[in-house]
């Protein structure tokens, strides 16, 4: 199966955009659905979200945040004209498409990528959509695309301070998101909230939304392997029941999600993820040394 990389560029710091020939996905994908990509023969399967697509021309676009070995290797080694080994999908359920009224759709860092197709479709379905992108300034992406697609697009950016690691960024992200969402909800009425982003950030936003009693749809990102419901790696507790995010989600009613459990499970492989990345960086260094 040739899934040719038709185009590729760096949109912002650590944000890489790919245009992929994948007619089987392009023909069917709906906002809210995702794909599983395998890029290398010894590689893992990672879930990514088609941001835009053309059903006739048979391509989809994907944006990856370079956060570990696989995404970094893709950023470093793949060139336009190369092929991805596997693009499976579309997977998961489409986001609910109806007229909610006024919607606030929140994307944290690269989470905004998944917000795009849903927010655009909601706007087209007659909703008044406000999108909010909370992100470090060097990682702000899709600004113009959002401005063209929805009623109002707000960027809540912040600068990265020297010496910050992922923890500090996450803390600042949560602080900014909570403050901005509070401000928006205090000043105007919304009928529906959507969030996409790190589980910790989504939980913090949910705690604000909950006080206002507004319905909230959250796209969850647990660990996935096959993403067709055959392993349960992506299991989450929703409304007291065990659900598989890949086939029952990825979108769920935020009021029913066990957030602490989700946050905890997301960090399951952190030490091995670090080891994989370190090993890869060492390889790169060794190659650099030889040249």
């Amino acid at each position, binding site marked *: 199966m040739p899934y040719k990389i038709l185009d590729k560029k760096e949109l912002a710091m650590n944000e890489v955009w790919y245009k992929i020939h994948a007619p089987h996905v392009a023909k069917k994908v709906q906002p809210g659905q995702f794909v599983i990509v395998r890029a290398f023969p010894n590689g893992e*399967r990672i879930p990514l979200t088609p941001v835009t697509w053309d059903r006739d021309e048979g391509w989809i676009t994907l944006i990856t945040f370079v956060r570990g070995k696989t995404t970094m290797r893709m950023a470093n080694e793949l060139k336009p004209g190369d092929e991805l080994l596997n693009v499976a999908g579309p997977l998961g359920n489409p986001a609910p498409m109806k007229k909610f009224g006024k919607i606030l759709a929140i994307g944290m860092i690269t989470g905004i990528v998944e917000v795009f197709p849903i927010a655009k479709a909601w706007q087209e379905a007659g909703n008044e959509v406000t999108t909010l992108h909370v992100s470090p300034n060097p990682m702000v992406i899709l600004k113009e695309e959002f401005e063209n697609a929805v009623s109002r697009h707000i960027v809540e950016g912040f600068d990265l301070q020297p010496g910050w690691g992922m923890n500090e960024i996450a803390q600042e992200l949560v602080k900014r998101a909570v403050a901005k969402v509070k401000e928006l909800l205090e000043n105007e009425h919304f009928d529906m909230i959507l969030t996409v982003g790190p589980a910790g950030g989504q939980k913090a936003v949910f705690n604000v939304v909950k006080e206002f009693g507004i319905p909230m749809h959250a796209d969850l990102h647990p660990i996935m392997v096959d993403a067709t419901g055959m392993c*349960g790696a992506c299991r989450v507790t929703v409304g007291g029941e065990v659900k598989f995010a890949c086939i029952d989600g990825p979108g769920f009613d935020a009021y029913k999600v066990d957030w602490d459990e989700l946050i905890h499970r997301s960090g*399951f492989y952190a030490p091995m993820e670090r080891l994989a990345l370190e090993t890869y960086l060492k390889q790169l260094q060794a190659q650099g040394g030889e040249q």
Partner: protein
Amino acid sequence: MVRKRPKLIKERVPTPERPVEERVKSFVEVNLGYDFASAVKEAERCLQCPVEYAPCIKGCPVHINIPGFIGKLVEHRDDPNKAVKEALRVIWGDNTLPAVTGRVCPQEEQCEMNCVMGKVGDPINIGKLERFVADYARKHSIEDELLAEMRPSVCGKGKVAVVGAGPAGLTCAGELAKLGYDVTIYEALHKPGGVLIYGIPEFRLPKEILDKEIAKLRELGVEIKLDHVVGKTVTLEELLEEYDAVFIGTGAGTPKLLNIPGILLDRIYSANEFLTRVNLMKAYKFPEYDEPIAVGKKTIVIGAGNTAMDAARSALRLGSEVTIAYRRGREDMTARIEEIQHAEEEGVKFEFFLNPVEFIGDENGRVKAVKFEKMKPLEERDKKGKRKIVGTGEYVTLEADTVIIAIGLEPNRIISEEATGLKVNPDGTLVVDENLMTSIPGVFAGGDAIRGEATVILAMGDGKRAAKAICDYIEKKRKANA
């Protein structure tokens, strides 16, 4: 062939196995199989029952002509290549995946259980002989010529879509291709094989061998579309517009999880996730392969079927101490005897009459122990003939930093949820008639998708039967339209 009345040789010729201390350190195959000389010696033990009577053939779900292929080994004993070629021709008539079935079938419950020799001594080692023929043929490039013979002279007899590249789908596709149909398999994962690729470990079925068996189907003209999830990528309705018939062989791949406290703690895996990471993604080679797996020092596997044995022996090879905990007794275990023996030899411990009631976690949210209720057997038996069990009200807690749940699987519902016209039983299996046709005309199904969790060879038997039914269906439709 005229033969003298055969002399009874009661004991089977053994197959060598890799020593325990060597094999537990790696995923290489445990059983080394026969060489030609020992295969012929074992073949000579066969009494050559007539084909129309031979009980072994009746015990085989795809009805391989067993005395037929065994006879060829003896007949051409002076010419190994010819012996194997003739034997393989006989096997391929009924089964296109002999290197797989020779390894993973529970022969003791099928062909070998029926073998007449088993009444006076050891049954003929049919599985290992089948495996020998397939392996020798592959190693000595004997397959190509036979494949050319098998390729149908007339193609284009119709177009059939097969959903799922597991044992049922692969067999159905192979049979239809031999008969001259254009077959396309739609597979959700990035490799074909179904449970053979993601479930059964290398030490029982080397993936290289599986890949070659599947490559033969491609030689026969079968197209395999990977990364296609029927129900999502393409609907059943769309397939019916493009193809004359559809076969659903989507298996039973959804794990049953225990509905008890602590199920979401870290390092609690479904056996499917654990085995998929190990087999399909080669996580045992991390970080050479990117897929991680986290196994601690003490693993408890819950369940006692083949999946549990595979998971236990895999965890052992990743350096863990492993205990299998089963709610029934030793004699109730459903795994193959050979696999239980291998697990025991390798140091897997067994605990019986323990039913899990809670997973206990540490302060970091990682599992640290499993609480079990002690069970006891009753005289009364259930529908499957197993002794019923009841709780004793006594509890025991076993330490574990990794838990693998292998209590069974049920059919994946992606396709039945999308295709609303497809009739489904309460347990998720598809409803089929005596011709394996579903509630939608032209859509057939077989294997675990209609049986629930069963065996590789039963799935293959269904695939073969469905292929025949599909031919009849297409022929009939053609005549009606003519």
